[in-house]
């Protein structure tokens, strides 16, 4: 990112804009975390009652409430949770284990899955969107547009089951179940193929349309018209004159997909038994472990904020601090 910025001719205006963008993104994340904490607190039931077992007396529950620190004032706990977040302390789960400890192994696995899916989505949607834009209204354009519209609304688990049936059960090309290696990671790369595909396909649908629409706005720009009149080849105009102008819109689309990828990862991991946060969250559902889910939400929010920040910086880079 730094290289990208130093290469650009950023003046004082752009530097100022970078600061504004950083502060704004940090503030938005803080607001989200406050809302998440409030939602967990204000709704009926807490971690102490959620983990109670049959036959426990009210005294047992209030004792555990004291152990988990839930008997202290709301604002004190809110301050402690928020103050701990920047230092990487995500609080304590309903079972009394630090949330960071529970998520330490699974979260990097989910980041790997989501990161690969984002890379595949970016590459495929750029390629398909550009291909469709070469001849607007042509056969390729209609085929790509139609397929993109068809897949973008599919829930990930439906895609996952279809892939499972075709590429695993019937052909036996890829394993149906992910096996965890001794280091807690994925044992073999072939086990990543189906989960990454299941996650990417709906997002490729979305982003192909965004790329196509962003490129459709470009031909009227004066520098593009000049390039066309100069008789430059079609693909050269597309890549060198149209694409740079479309980058901000494409980047914000992909950044929005990051959140969707996290949500989808929870589902896809469940289908393929992938060792990520999906499994942890499924356990949290059974345990009614809200602090754990809040921790996952905080981490996800931080990652999505990071990606949105990159999109913001790309916009500044490609608009040179204007607009």
């Amino acid at each position, binding site marked *: 990112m730094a290289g990208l910025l130093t290469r650009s001719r950023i003046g004082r205006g752009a530097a100022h804009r970078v600061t504004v963008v950083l502060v704004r993104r940090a503030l938005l994340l803080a607001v989200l975390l406050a809302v998440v904490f409030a*939602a967990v607190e204000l709704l*009926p039931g807490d971690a102490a009652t*959620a983990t109670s077992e049959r036959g426990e007396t009210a005294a047992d529950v209030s004792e555990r409430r004291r152990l988990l620190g839930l008997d202290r004032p709301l604002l004190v706990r809110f301050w402690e949770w928020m103050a701990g977040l920047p230092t990487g302390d995500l609080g304590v789960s309903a079972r009394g284990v630090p949330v960071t400890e529970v998520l330490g192994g699974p979260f990097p696995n989910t980041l790997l899955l989501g990161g690969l899916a984002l890379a595949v989505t970016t590459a495929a949607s750029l390629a398909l969107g550009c291909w469709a834009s070469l001849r607007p209204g042509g056969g390729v354009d209609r085929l790509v547009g139609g397929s993109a519209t068809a897949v*973008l*609304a599919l829930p990930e688990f439906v895609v996952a089951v279809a892939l499972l049936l075709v590429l695993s059960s019937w052909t036996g090309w890829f394993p149906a179940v992910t096996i965890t290696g001794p280091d807690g990671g994925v044992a073999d790369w072939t086990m990543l193929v189906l989960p990454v595909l299941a996650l990417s396909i709906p997002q490729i649908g979305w982003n192909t349309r965004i790329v196509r629409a962003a490129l459709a706005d470009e031909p009227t720009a004066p520098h593009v018209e000049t390039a066309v009149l100069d008789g430059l080849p079609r693909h050269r105009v597309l890549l060198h004159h149209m694409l740079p102008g479309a980058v901000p819109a494409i980047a914000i689309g992909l950044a929005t997909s990051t*959140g969707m990828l996290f949500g989808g990862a929870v589902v896809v991991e469940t289908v393929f038994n992938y060792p990520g946060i999906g499994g942890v969250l*499924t356990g949290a*559902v059974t345990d009614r472990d809200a602090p754990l889910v809040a921790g996952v939400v905080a981490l996800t929010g931080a990652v999505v904020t990071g990606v949105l920040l990159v999109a913001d910086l790309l916009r500044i880079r490609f608009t040179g601090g204007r607009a």
Partner: protein
Amino acid sequence: MSDRVRVALRTAPALLLVTVAVAGPWLAPHPIDAPVTAPYGTPGGDALLGGDQLGRDVLSRVLCGGRDLIVTSLLIAVLVTGIAALLGAVGAVRPAVGRVVERAADVLMLLPAVLGILLITLSWPDGGRPAIVGVAVVFGVPYAVRFVAGAAAPVAASGYVEAATAGGERLGHLVVREVLPNLRATLLALFGLRFVAAVYLVATTGFLQVGPQPPAADWALMIRENTAGILLNPWAVLAPSLAIGLLAISVNLAAEALVPRTGPRAVVPQ
């Protein structure tokens, strides 16, 4: 006229599928909770699509398993469209309201809706379907308001709304009588798009087992329950997957056909 035929043709599959799913429980040949064949029994005889993990009739469960999904999704789509229409129209006349909604959308963008639903259903275990509807509405409204605001801005800037404002008409009158009637096409398209999003979200909660609970028949839950026996009776997974897939695709195509061709703009009377 040809434009109308095009829209009718593209919305027909979605309407047909929704009708079949809502009428499904009356068409089911067997009860959804009694075994009629062996667990994961292959199709044949009494069970056209075979049996599920408990030997219950897959066909009957598929026919019964879509109504709640569709009714819940329709409710979400109606609520989101209605709230977004009001907020978007108010925002076009009163920009301060629009800015508040924009910030809310920026914050919610950081939280995947699926995680949001898990968070709320965990914090509020007895919330049930109202909790899911509530979260889906909260997550849907900010994006929907952007969609409406984009279409409402040119209407609000048009002469007759400015004239009405200058004439001292109150906010309620401006929104309901002057702005909203010109956004009919936009709102219809928005309703379709929000229905697609709601189907995605409600189905996903069903799959994650925070929605309908066994022994209820639900397409998403059926997929979850029967994946283990996918080789024994693929139809137990394939049939509900096809149902959800076709619903998502057909409703999406219908919504796309409803979007005004020039993009989400107002239909200004000729």
